[in-house]
Structures are given as structure tokens and as C-alpha cells.
């Protein structure tokens, strides 16, 4: 049965309220079970030996001593895993990232794994494995990797997207170009042209729960895995493909997930746990240490970006270009392409071109991180826009409004936008009390915008009605931040019953059809859509059953406010049947009552946000502190406003951390120097103010409730907003994020030297 996904403007009773989440009690009492909280009889502990070198040939791995240690049950290296190098490169890359094959490609790259009876024994065993390395030249910086004398990391990588096709391998995996119009003509027409290069350092998602799994493979080929993941179905497909298991025989159960932000969309050590279990015929539990999470699970790209914007004196942007270099770690990725698609997405720029280079370096494989690739491009664009505004003497928000993207604007990646919310967000900023508030001495204010596509994808849900009229809803997207609550609200809304009568669970891969990974802000949009349709299917069944109970044709039964009533001539005195009445009699009217839906949730609504940021700068130390922060974002429709606000606040906090202090620091030896929460400085509670939020609701026309995704967009503006605020507070325009005290003080020094020179 196909359903119409158009927005209907229906009036809501349940949606928009702030209910208590169903998993709340479990999570405040410590009962909720996360990745590392499961155990199985006879389980072994799996640990990974990792490369201490940024780039090295693995000459020999001698495991003989370790194997002899009592309690060691299995040791694996790439020799124990399928060799996929001849086949599809993407799968081979995933496996090679999980376990080095012949070469260690970054500090932290797995070279062997051990399963032993306990953690102490496994740790000893790792020390007894003898790996002979031949250290190779390495490169970790994105710009250095493109230089002619840089070591070329893979001999099979030829830059894609070039014509003619290159004949020598390169660290540039791909060149992408997006845009439209005639940029040369546009720049020729400009009164002012601003051109700068920006750099951003590598950051990590920083979820508090390390990767963890418990894998069991039986000799008959069946297998189970309990794992913290955003995509149990994807993990199943990938692990089964990598290891040659039957997809249906591998049951993956997603645990409660302690944060993901994109980092738990890729497999890391999970295939190793399955391989160790297969070799030992025992359950194997693997939990990464924090050091391993930083060194060997995907951070986001570090970048180097040239931006050029030309504008008329009246503020109209005539042309804009981006030339961007994004490193994807040791393997090719889509990251620069995403940057090309998002960089100018907030604006209506007739002549624009975005060029992106995906670059390979000796760093861990980059994974998606909340609106992947967009924050860095936005840092460059939003910072440059403020410089344009300053040069032409225009208010920076007015400049943005003058060029803002609207319904009918062509996106950088081609299509014409439908109804979108960036103009409304900027107008809301101008009206916001924060924007009008007086600044304290030493403070400055900045505004910046952000965009993220949002996606939909394959989704299915099962809705089962119990004989007492309460409802079980099984969804296949995971609950990273209150999704079960939103889904229960949607089911309750459709069925016309109370929120408390719906219980939502995240299904394992054996209980529900394929669901795409919970990424791209798709959870509430997609599973919400499937839940609406499943509930409507269930209502049709309920009407049929009511018709039987009332002995009337089903066409005469309508569903209203959680009740079936017969309409039409002669039915006036028939009883009204509640869902509970019908459910109670289901055994005699045809058996269990359920609704199902399988859908490709297409038509995701683009997300836009505008942020206001006040910072205070200590001119003597370069320390910038965020004093006040406001997020304005279009949610389409906020199902559960608490958790929509929570997404806005969390995304903004991550963006602020990125803007101020978070960065991977590599030494000259190519090793990561700050693989821990002490020196990788994510914001602590005392670093932040309350983060004010304003939810806009501009319905997505392609969702019955008008839902857009909300999870990612608000990590995009903070880098620009913070930079613009620093400029306003301290008079320096930063070109390198994070804008740490050292960089800000350097900029202040340069500015004072320049002013002395110009004064002299």
C-alpha cells in the first residue's frame, strides 16, 4: 500500500508536547544497557595491537610467544581475514582499516588482535606479539600531502574527476566541482573582492561511550552481535560481507548508544570480534579504550580552504568560489564533495563554483561527524562574508539577508529549493532580544548561518496492538537522543490514544526489515513517516474489526479520536468502539491487530540555522570565552520540543568546542599526541553559558507532519559565529580553527605590528 507523504497541515493533540521519555528511568537508575554492559557465558576479552608508526611496512608479525601464554585463545592478523584487495575497493578499504594488510597506514592502525580469558591476559599477550616494521615516510597535513615531494600513500589511487585521466598515483583521491553561472563575469562586476585561505584542524565526535561489542559466531555459521551502533542493519550487511557470513544468519542488536554523531556509522573493531569468535567458538567482547577511540576511530577531516567572494557596494554578491582540500585519513572519502555541495547553500549566488579535493594522509580513516564537511566550508564562507560586510560598510546580517537563499533559489548542487527557513531564521535573529542586547566591555557579537541537507532512506516499522489496547512500536532507527519518545507521540497522535499507551523499542536485525543507518538527521523524519503510515494501516484493520463487531459495512466506519464509529443511516444508535474495545475482541474478529510500513522516506527537508554568539576576549592571553549563545533553526515541525532544543544545544556546543579548543595534535613523527579527554579539550560545563534556542516551524512539504531533520545543522554555524564575534570583540579576523588562545594572541600581535607599521 502506498501512502501520500504530502504535508497536510493537520491539527495536533499530542505532537509538540513535552512528554517524559520512556527510557528515562532506566537511564537515571543505571539499568540501561550500553555496548559494554552485556556479557555472555564463557566470553573472552578481545584486544587490538596497534601500530606505533604513522606509516610502516609490516615485515613480519610473530605471534608464537603470545600464543603460548596460558589463557590466550586466538590471535588474528590480516592473514586470518579474507583478502578482498582484488574485489570492490570500498569493501577492501573498510576491512583494511579494521586490520592493516601489509602496511600500517596511521598511528593506531590495527595490526593484530587477541582473544584471551581476561583483560590482564590479553594485555600481556599484546606485549608478546613481535611486529617488525620498516618505517616509511609519512604525511599528516592536508596541504603537505598535495606537494610534489610528499610520499604517495597508495599506488592504486589516481585522482578521479580529472580530464584527461592522470597516469601517476596521487594523494588526491578525487576532484569534485559544483556550481553554476559565470564566476569570471561575476567577479568582474564586483566592487569588492575578498579572498582568503582558512584552515581547520581535525576534530573527533567525542561520544562518551567508546566503541564496544559482544560477538558470538557458531560453527554452524549463525552469529550474533550486541553492539553500540547507529546502524545495526548496516553493520550486519558490512560485517557479513567482509567475513563471508549469510546476512540473515547474523543477528545484530543495537545496545543503548552512548553518543555517535556519525562516528558509529562505520565499523571499526566489530569485524575483528566476529573473526575472533569464529576462530575460538566463544563469545568475544571488545571495548575500545579512549586512546583507541581517538587514534583509530574516525574523526572528521582537517581542511584548508580558499574562499573568494565578490560583491557590489549594495551588498549583492556577484560571484563566489571555494577551493577546498579535505583529508579523509588513510582512505578515499566523499568529504570534499559534501563541502562543495554545502559551502554556499545558504545563499542565492548567481555565479558560484566550489571545487573540492579529497586528500589521503597518514591519519585514521575519517568518518561522518554531524553535518559532515559542512562546518569547515561554512567557517570560511561565514568569516569571509563578515569581511565583505565590513569592506562595503554594511551590517553583516543585512548582507546575508540581501543574498539569502529562498524557495526557488538554485542550490550549489543543482536542484531548486522548495520552502526553506534561512530567511526566516535571519529575520528571527534580527528580532531576537539577544541580538539587540547591549554588549559588555571586551565583548563582541557574531552571527553565522548553516545548512545541512538532511536525508530519508529505507525505513520500516511494526506496530502491534495488544489485547488491552496498548501499543508496541518496533522501529529500526536507533534512539540517540529521545527518538522513542517522539515515535510514541506520533503513534499516539495517529491512533488517537494516550502517549502512555504506546511503548517503542528499537528492533534487532532479525525482527524487522532493513533500515538504513540512523544518520543524516533522518531518524524522526523517516521512522516518523513510517510510523504514521503503519498507524494508518492499523486503523484500517481496526475499522474492519469494528465493522464486524457492529455488523456494518467497513465503509461506514470512521476512525476519530481513538474510536471507531459507524456513520450513515440507521447507525445512530450503535455503540462507539474504543481501540481498547476492539483490541479486546481481536481474537474473535480475525486475530492480532497490527500495522506495518516499509518505505523509502524520500523528500527530506533541508535544515537551516542562524546563530548569535557573544564572546569575551582576554587581550593579554588570547583566551576567548563564549558569554552568550542563541540558536535559531527551522525544525519543520518540532515533535518533542525538549529534544529538538537538545539537538540544537548539543550541536552548538560541539561547534563551539571545535571553534575554540578541539584539535588533533600530531607530532613530527606522525603520531597523535593528545589521544585523551585531558588534552583533547571538549567543552566542560563551566566553559559554556546556557544556550538559548528558538525553534522555527516551516513545514517540509514532503512529510505528513512537515518534519525536517534537526540533528546536524546547528554544528555548522558556530565556527563562523565565534570567529565573527572574536573579530567584533578584539578586532582580529582569525583564519585558523580552533581559535585557541595561542592563535588569537598571535593574531593580536600581528594586528598590533601592522597598526604600528601603518601608524609609522
Amino acid at each position, binding site marked *: 500500500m502506498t501512502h501520500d507523504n504530502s504535508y497536510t497541515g493537520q491539527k495536533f493533540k499530542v505532537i509538540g508536547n513535552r512528554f517524559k521519555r520512556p527510557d528515562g528511568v532506566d537511564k537515571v*537508575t543505571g539499568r*540501561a544497557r550500553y555496548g*559494554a554492559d552485556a556479557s555472555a557465558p564463557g566470553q573472552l576479552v578481545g584486544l587490538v595491537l596497534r601500530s606505533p608508526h604513522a606509516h610502516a611496512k609490516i615485515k613480519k608479525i610473530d605471534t608464537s610467544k603470545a600464543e603460548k601464554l596460558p589463557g590466550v585463545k586466538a590471535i588474528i592478523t590480516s592473514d586470518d581475514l579474507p583478502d578482498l584487495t582484488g574485489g570492490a575497493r570500498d569493501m577492501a578499504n573498510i576491512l583494511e582499516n579494521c586490520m592493516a594488510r601489509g602496511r600500517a597506514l596511521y598511528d593506531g592502525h590495527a595490526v593484530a588482535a587477541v582473544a584471551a580469558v581476561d583483560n590482564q591476559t590479553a594485555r600481556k599477550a599484546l606485549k608478546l606479539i613481535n611486529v617488525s616494521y620498516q618505517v616509511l615516510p609519512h604525511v599528516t597535513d592536508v596541504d603537505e600531502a598535495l606537494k610534489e615531494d610528499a610520499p604517495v600513500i597508495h599506488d592504486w589511487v589516481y585522482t578521479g574527476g580529472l580530464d584527461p585521466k592522470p597516469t601517476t598515483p596521487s594523494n588526491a583521491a578525487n576532484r569534485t566541482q559544483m556550481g553554476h553561472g559565470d564566476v569570471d563575469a561575476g567577479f568582474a562586476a564586483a566592487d569588492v573582492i575578498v579572498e582568503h585561505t582558512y584552515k581547520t584542524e581535525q576534530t573527533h565526535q*567525542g*561520544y562518551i561511550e567508546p566503541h564496544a561489542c559482544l560477538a558470538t559466531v557458531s560453527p554452524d555459521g549463525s552469529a550474533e552481535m550486541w553492539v553500540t551502533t547507529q546502524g545495526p542493519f548496516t553493520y550486519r550487511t558490512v560485517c557479513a560481507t567482509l567475513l563471508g557470513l549469510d546476512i540473515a544468519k547474523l543477528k545484530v542488536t543495537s545496545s*543503548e548508544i552512548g553518543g555517535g554523531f556519525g562516528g558509529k556509522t562505520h565499523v571499526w573493531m566489530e569485524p575483528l570480534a566476529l573473526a575472533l569468535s569464529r576462530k575460538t567458538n566463544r563469545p568475544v567482547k571488545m571495548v575500545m579504550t579512549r586512546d583507541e577511540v581517538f587514534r583509530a576511530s574516525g574523526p572528521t577531516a582537517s581542511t584548508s580552504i580558499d574562499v573568494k567572494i565578490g560583491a557590489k557596494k549594495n551588498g549583492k554578491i556577484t560571484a563566489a568560489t571555494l577551493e577546498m582540500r579535505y583529508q579523509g585519513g588513510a582512505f578515499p572519502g566523499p568529504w570534499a564533495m559534501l563541502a562543495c555541495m554545502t559551502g554556499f547553500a545558504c545563499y542565492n549566488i548567481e555565479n558560484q563554483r566550489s571545487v573540492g579535493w579529497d586528500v589521503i594522509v597518514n591519519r585514521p580513516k575519517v568518518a561522518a561527524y554531524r553535518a559532515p564537511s559542512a562546518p569547515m566550508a561554512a567557517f570560511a564562507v561565514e568569516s569571509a562574508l563578515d569581511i565583505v560586510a565590513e569592506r562595503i560598510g554594511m551590517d553583516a546580517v543585512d548582507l546575508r539577508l540581501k543574498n539569502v537563499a529562498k524557495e526557488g533559489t538554485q542550490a550549489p548542487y543543482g536542484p531548486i529549493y522548495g520552502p526553506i527557513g534561512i530567511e526566516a531564521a535571519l529575520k528571527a535573529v534580527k528580532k531576537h532580544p539577544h541580538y539587540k542586547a547591549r554588549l559588555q566591555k571586551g565583548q563582541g557579537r557574531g552571527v553565522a548561518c548553516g545548512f545541512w541537507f538532511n536525508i530519508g532512506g529505507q525505513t520500516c516499522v511494526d506496530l502491534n496492538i495488544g489485547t488491552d489496547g496498548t501499543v508496541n512500536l518496533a522501529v529500526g532507527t536507533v534512539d540517540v537522543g529521545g527518538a522513542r519518545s517522539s515515535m510514541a507521540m506520533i503513534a499516539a497522535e495517529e491512533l488517537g490514544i494516550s502517549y502512555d499507551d504506546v511503548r517503542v523499542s528499537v528492533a534487532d536485525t532479525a525482527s524487522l526489515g532493513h533500515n538504513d543507518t540512523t544518520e543524516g538527521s533522518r531518524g524522526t523524519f523517516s521512522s516518523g513517516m513510517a510510523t504514521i503510515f503503519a498507524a494508518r494501516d492499523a486503523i484500517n484493520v481496526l475499522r474492519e474489526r469494528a465493522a464486524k463487531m457492529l455488523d456494518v459495512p467497513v465503509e461506514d466506519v470512521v476512525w476519530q479520536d481513538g474510536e471507531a464509529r459507524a456513520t450513515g443511516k440507521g447507525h445512530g444508535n450503535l455503540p462507539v468502539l474504543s481501540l481498547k474495545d476492539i483490541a479486546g475482541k481481536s481474537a474473535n474478529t480475525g486475530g492480532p491487530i497490527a500495522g506495518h510500513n516499509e518505505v523509502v522516506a524520500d523528500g527530506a527537508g533541508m535544515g537551516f540555522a542562524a546563530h548569535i554568539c557573544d564572546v569575551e576576549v582576554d587581550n593579554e592571553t588570547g583566551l576567548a570565552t563564549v558569554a552568550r549563545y542563541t540558536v535559531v533553526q527551522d525544525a519543520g515541525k518540532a515533535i518533542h520540543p525538549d529534544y529538538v532544543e537538545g539537538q540544537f544545544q548539543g550541536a552548538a556546543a560541539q561547534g563551539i568546542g571545535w571553534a575554540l579548543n578541539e584539535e588533533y595534535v600530531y607530532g613530527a613523527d606522525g603520531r597523535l599526541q593528545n589521544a*585523551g579527554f585531558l588534552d583533547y579539550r571538549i567543552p566542560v560545563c563551566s566553559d559554556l553559558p546556557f544556550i538559548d534556542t528558538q525553534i522555527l516551524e516551516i513545514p517540509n512539504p514532503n512529510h505528513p507532519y512537515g518534519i525536517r531533520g534537526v540533528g546536524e545543522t546547528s554544528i555548522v554555524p558556530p565556527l563562523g559565529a565565534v570567529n565573527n564575534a572574536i573579530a567584533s570583540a578584539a578586532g582580529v579576523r582569525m583564519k585558523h580553527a580552533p581559535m585557541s588562545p595561542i592563535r588569537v594572541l598571535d593574531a593580536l600581535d600581528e594586528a598590533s605590528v601592522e597598526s604600528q607599521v601603518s601608524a609609522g
Partner: protein
Amino acid sequence: MSGAELVTTKINGDVVEFACPTDEVLLDSLRDRVGLTGVKEGCGTGDCGACSVTMDGQLVCSCLVLGVEANGADIGTVEGLSDGNELHPLQQQFIDNAALQCGICTPGFLVSAKALLDNNPNPTETQIRYALAGNLCRCTGYDKIVKAVQAAAKDMRKSKQSKAKRK
């Protein structure tokens, strides 16, 4: 092989005995030997606070205490916060204020916030923020957490007053 010792300790009011290797940290003893998996490991180096417990009333990271040090001590974990069926005001306010998203940091925050409010029933926003600085949260931006602690502090002061009045 590592030596092991028998440890007798009181955890959430119950006397518990377990044997643990001398180099094992209390976090692992609590999780793997006593089964209290509400105590979470986020870093193992005292930088995230997910493993916060109280030891003889003092807030500590259980990843930085040896299991054997718990011998004779009184340990409090998130599992001991609620009074039977009744949630602690902090637990209730964390739910009511949507102060958790993924929830992995929540047990540590609750234990730390309780330690704060036990010492200072009426903390300022700044005092709350600094007291909770040892607990990392990556989902919420701390906004709703601070508000939940403020609300719980108010609840606790009220219930203390009404108890005092009844007496």
C-alpha cells in the same frame, strides 16, 4: 600472575564481598565483579567522570581507585540513588527536564550533582557548572543538565523545609 585479594565493602548500603586482582581498578570491580554496570567507563583516566562514585562520602572517579582500596569503605553508586520505588529528586528532574540524550554520562552526573547538593543545598549556576566540570557530556551542551540540578536543588530544599515543619 597478578595477586588477588578479598575485598569486603559496603555498596549502596549492602555488604559485598569480592575477590579482585590487586591492580584492578574499582570501576572494573564494580562492573565486572559486583554487576553494577550503571558505573560507566568513558576514558579510564579520570577525565570524563562517567565512573563517578562516592567513597566514604567523597566523590571520586572509580577508574582512579584500586578495587582493593575499597576494603572497609562505603561506596555509593547511581544504583543506590533512589529510595526504593521513589526516584531521587535529581533523577526525577533529569527526566522531567530532558537533561539526558544518550544517557551514558547520566549516572556520573547524578552522583556528582548529589555530592554537590549534599554539601551545598543552594548552589549558584556558576557553582553548579564548576562542580560538574569533571563530568563530560557531549549531547546536551549542559544546558538542561544545569537546569535539572537547579530544579532538584529547589525540590530538595522544599522537602527539607516541609520535613522540618512537620517536626
